[in-house]
């Protein structure tokens, strides 16, 4: 009896191990090097992804799905995608099918939403599905659930060029985002452009400044955060650096700014989950 039980335990363990390995391989789409489709695309029409401003060890972490810590969130997102929730007892999968069906969604958000007559971004879109279709509670910004599903939606679009629309009804919101980008703020009185347009490629103390084209890599794993974080969290950080009062994640001001930043990223590849310092 003892022998049998022991053996059963052994078999179960092996089976689980095999499953886990198979799972990882599915995520990497059969390849150990992650963003195969991004390779050679990090510079387009003179625009450079922050990837090219990262040091080689950070790039290597992003390049390899096994090393990229952001993949833990993508995996979590995949589980949540298939999990029924809310009073409607539905999962994302019930309405949308496999996550891969969402390929092409990430590059075009934020976009104009006729219902609220303002922009909507991916996090807000996910939460709208939760509250309206699933009758579930919205997820909180920069917590693992929302980060996970947002990262998953970015991940399945890897390699596609960012391609937001700024004409038509989105235009006035784009203009607001643009105004935000060029407005000086905070006690140190700097605008986004002072760092990311005027001084990209230079050092501010130990920080190597990129072009701020963060429209293709968020949510990004930041070594400094030791976790994945949203683009709006990055905006807050950049606001605080100049001693300005930040906005809350999901504020209209940040969604408008997101459209502007993503437009500056148009043409560069989706590389979610990015890895940055």
């Amino acid at each position, binding site marked *: 009896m003892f022998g049998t039980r022991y053996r059963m335990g052994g078999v179960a363990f092996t089976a689980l191990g095999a499953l886990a390995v198979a799972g990882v391989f599915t995520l990497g789409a059969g390849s150990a090097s992650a963003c195969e489709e991004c390779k050679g695309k990090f510079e387009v029409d003179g625009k450079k992804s922050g990837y090219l401003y990262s040091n080689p060890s950070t790039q290597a972490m992003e390049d390899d799905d096994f090393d990229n810590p952001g993949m833990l969130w993508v995996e979590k997102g995949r589980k949540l995608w298939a999990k029924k929730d809310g009073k409607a007892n539905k999962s994302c999968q019930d309405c949308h099918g496999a996550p891969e069906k969402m390929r092409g969604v990430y590059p075009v958000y934020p976009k104009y939403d006729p219902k609220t007559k303002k922009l909507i971004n991916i996090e807000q879109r996910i939460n709208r599905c939760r509250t309206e279709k699933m009758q579930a509670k919205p997820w909180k910004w920069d917590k693992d659930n929302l980060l996970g599903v947002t990262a998953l939606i970015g991940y399945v679009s890897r390699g596609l060029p960012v391609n937001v629309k700024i004409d038509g009804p989105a235009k006035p919101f784009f203009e607001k985002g643009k105004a935000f980008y060029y407005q*000086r*703020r905070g006690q140190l009185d700097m605008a986004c452009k002072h760092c990311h347009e005027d001084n990209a490629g230079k050092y*501010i103390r130990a920080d190597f400044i990129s072009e701020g084209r963060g429209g293709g890599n968020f949510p990004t794993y930041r070594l400094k955060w030791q976790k994945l974080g949203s683009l709006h969290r990055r905006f807050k950080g950049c606001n605080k650096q100049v001693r300005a009062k930040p906005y809350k994640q999901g504020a209209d001001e940040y969604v408008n700014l997101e459209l502007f930043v993503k437009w500056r990223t148009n043409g560069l590849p989706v590389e979610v989950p990015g890895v940055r310092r």
Partner: protein
Amino acid sequence: MRMTTLLAGGAALALMAQGAAAEVTKVHEKGLKPYEIVDGVSIPKPLTDKSGDPKRGAKLMVARKKGNCLACHKVVQLNDYPFHGNVGPELSDVASNMQEGEMRLRLVNPKVLNPDTIMPAFYHTEGLHRVKKKFKGKPVLTEQEIEDIIAFLKTLKSSQ
């Protein structure tokens, strides 16, 4: 008497011409001591009666929560401290190239010289947008701290 307007600052300004060509702009911003800009390029008079202390000035240039000048400027005389940025010009020989008064205006409000500069105004409280509560109405550096930094800048000559 010739009247001009100053683009940057936004403070209540009284402008007057003094003597031959010197054009003096009085600036008095909220919560700060008044000072005078001469010919749009210099603040010749110190902001305090007490002379600046170069040792404290050096510390203020390094301190991240104070001047943090090393964020943008290389200063070889401060090579004991790591990570000098390169956004602004090197200051290791600045005393050979600039008068004290020019340094003072540069620190107090560099936007008078270059409205598009990234360099913060260190003695300026008006016309700012969304300043964090903690810093509202306060300059980045006090008038004495500005004088301490100038005292240190005056020692920076590469020929030494």
